[in-house]
């Protein structure tokens, strides 16, 4: 198990390296001149050249990539004009756009993204697993159909529409909640939760359909297994059978998938983040791509990749912990 974890973490480093090369290459291919974009619309050619020099854009791509990797390992020094800015390892570079350390930017944005992803997970676990169980328990009935349609309705509606609808209904019509604006957890946990409620609901409901179906399918599959027959033959009631035995079988895949989803959400919940103005990584990524802010984009993608890879490992470990029959290899 420890060996497995170590081996996977070793693999993670390779994954991240590959990911960084890919992103570097992609952005490098993208049109638009980062120097021009960083300089501003009406820079003179001389100024652009200076900025290009400053950003190291004159170097060969390979050199730039090597510098980037060196920065991660050993840190780098940058000039602020008036002084020297030490960017400690792991240094992901300075944003072309804002001249801020990418590591700093990411650390600043991470809490928002993490709160969104984890909170949404709670919702999709509660709603998704609940709905899935309900429809498994009432299979064939009206309840099942209603649950199916409702959960599917949530997947069939793109998240930007779902979020806007929720905002309109909850904040504008019913006025149950003020319009959310992000408050960091460290600042005021209560307000943080209130303000994250709608984003959580949006993302959570959107995802929960998937989990409802997963839960339902796994539960039904477990219900078809032989040991369920045993408990039926001993007079155990249907509710206990579904709630205890069938649900237990549905837990491992739900956990595994949740870990993966949370992982991808670290860069993937762009739509929710921009709709609710959550200063998270997804939005940073999109903005970075728009202005060809190579260090920021690479940095965020790396963090995201790390989250995905880590989530993969965690998912495997959790899966193995939840289902003792599985052997890790």
């Amino acid at each position, binding site marked *: 198990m420890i060996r497995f974890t170590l081996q996977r973490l070793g693999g993670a480093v390779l994954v991240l390296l590959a990911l960084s090369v890919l992103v570097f290459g992609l952005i490098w291919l993208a049109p638009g001149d980062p120097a021009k974009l960083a300089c501003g619309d009406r820079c003179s050619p001389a100024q652009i050249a200076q900025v290009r020099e400053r950003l190291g854009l004159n170097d060969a791509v390979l050199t730039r990539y090597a510098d980037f990797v060196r920065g991660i390992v050993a840190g780098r020094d940058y000039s602020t004009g008036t002084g020297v800015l030490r960017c400690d390892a792991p240094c992901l570079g300075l944003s072309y756009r804002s001249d801020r350390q990418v590591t700093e930017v990411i650390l600043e944005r991470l809490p928002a993204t993490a709160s969104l992803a984890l909170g949404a997970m709670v919702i999709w676990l509660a709603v998704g697993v609940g709905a899935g169980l309900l429809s498994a328990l009432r299979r064939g009935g009206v309840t099942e159909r209603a649950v199916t349609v409702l959960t599917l309705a949530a997947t069939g509606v793109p998240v930007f*529409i779902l979020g806007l609808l929720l905002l309109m209904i909850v904040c504008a019509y019913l006025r149950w909640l003020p319009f959310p604006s992000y408050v960091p957890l460290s600042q005021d946990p209560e307000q943080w939760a209130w303000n994250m409620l709608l984003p959580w609901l949006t993302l959570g409901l959107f995802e929960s359909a998937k989990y409802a179906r*997963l839960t339902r399918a796994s539960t039904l*599959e477990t219900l078809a297994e032989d040991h369920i027959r045993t408990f039926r033959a001993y007079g155990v009631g249907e509710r206990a059978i579904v709630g205890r035995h069938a649900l237990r079988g549905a837990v491992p895949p739900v956990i595994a998938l949740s870990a993966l989803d949370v992982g991808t959400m670290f860069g993937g919940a762009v739509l929710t983040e921009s709709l609710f103005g959550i200063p998270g990584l997804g939005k940073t990524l999109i903005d970075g791509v728009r202005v060809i802010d190579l260090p920021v984009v690479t940095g965020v993608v790396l963090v995201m990749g790390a989250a995905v890879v880590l989530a993969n490992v965690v998912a495997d470990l959790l899966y193995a912990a939840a289902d003792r029959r599985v052997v890790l290899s």
Partner: protein
Amino acid sequence: MSGLGRVSGPGRVSGLGRVSGTLTRPAAGAAQTPPAAGPPVPSSPAGVLRRLRSRPSAVLSAGVLAVLVLLALAAPLLTALAGQDPYAYHDELVDSARGGVPIGSFGGVSADHWLGVEPGTGRDLFARLLYGARISLLVAVGATLVQLAIGVAVGLAAGLGNRFTDHLLSRVTDVMTALPMLVLGIALTAVVPADFPRPLLLILVIGVLGWGGASRIVRAQTLTLKRLDFVAAARLGGNGPWRVARRELLPSLAAPVITYAAILLPANIVVEASLSFLGVGVKPPTPSWGQMLSNAQTWFRADPLYVLLPAGLLLVTVLAFTVLGDAVRTALDPREASRLRVGTRKEDS
């Protein structure tokens, strides 16, 4: 669940066979129905069809999809019948002073414009919805095919290859899962020549980034299958690994792959919508449901029909695909096929 190996213990339980379906892009997955676990598999195409036909919901959703496809195919004909064209502007039908909202009730529904007109342009909604269906379905189906093709190939190779190949391919899958679709989408739409057909580009972007789930499912399934004796028997028959894969494994992968396809398809429609929302979707003036939805985003109070129509169609499509997918899954599932198993159903009381 790339690292999960086999299931231990003497009982050869189908513990991994649980992560079924329902996964959109970052799917983790494993086998759905290890063929060894159930009774004989009556999976001849005719048998599956017969069982599908006996489920009203499956028939209904297949019907709905057929109608949708027909409508999409016949779009030019139908719009011509309605005397409309999806691109023609009707400035006179919108109230310019009020943001271009259609004049008249229900978003400008009239004898000419059966479903009203688009705010701002006055283009016929009926025609645009039909033409939009073509793109949306094309992109969704195309992307799904690409995802499945790559996913099956990589999953098979990982499942069949040695430890090194498996590790390598699993890590590649990780990389692809971690690569944000938007970055690639934006970068590619910018790099690729503007006259490159957009739907094809969308298909490629969604397809090339979204195969992780399929590959994981196929890999897990392959790992299960390859330990089955019929694979060993095929080896003893003197078959090389690729022949074994093609003749023995691929047919058995059909069930989970088809099931997964039914989940991917609607998810891809929504992905197309989201990409359009971020401006990397189809090229105007070509309509797609996703692009219509993203334009309609803010209109649901001023012109509800404008939102409800594409959203409703999308919803119906998603529903139909899902219901049909569920039905196909159960029809292919040997355990569901013998529904009379003792004790697997609840009491009649």
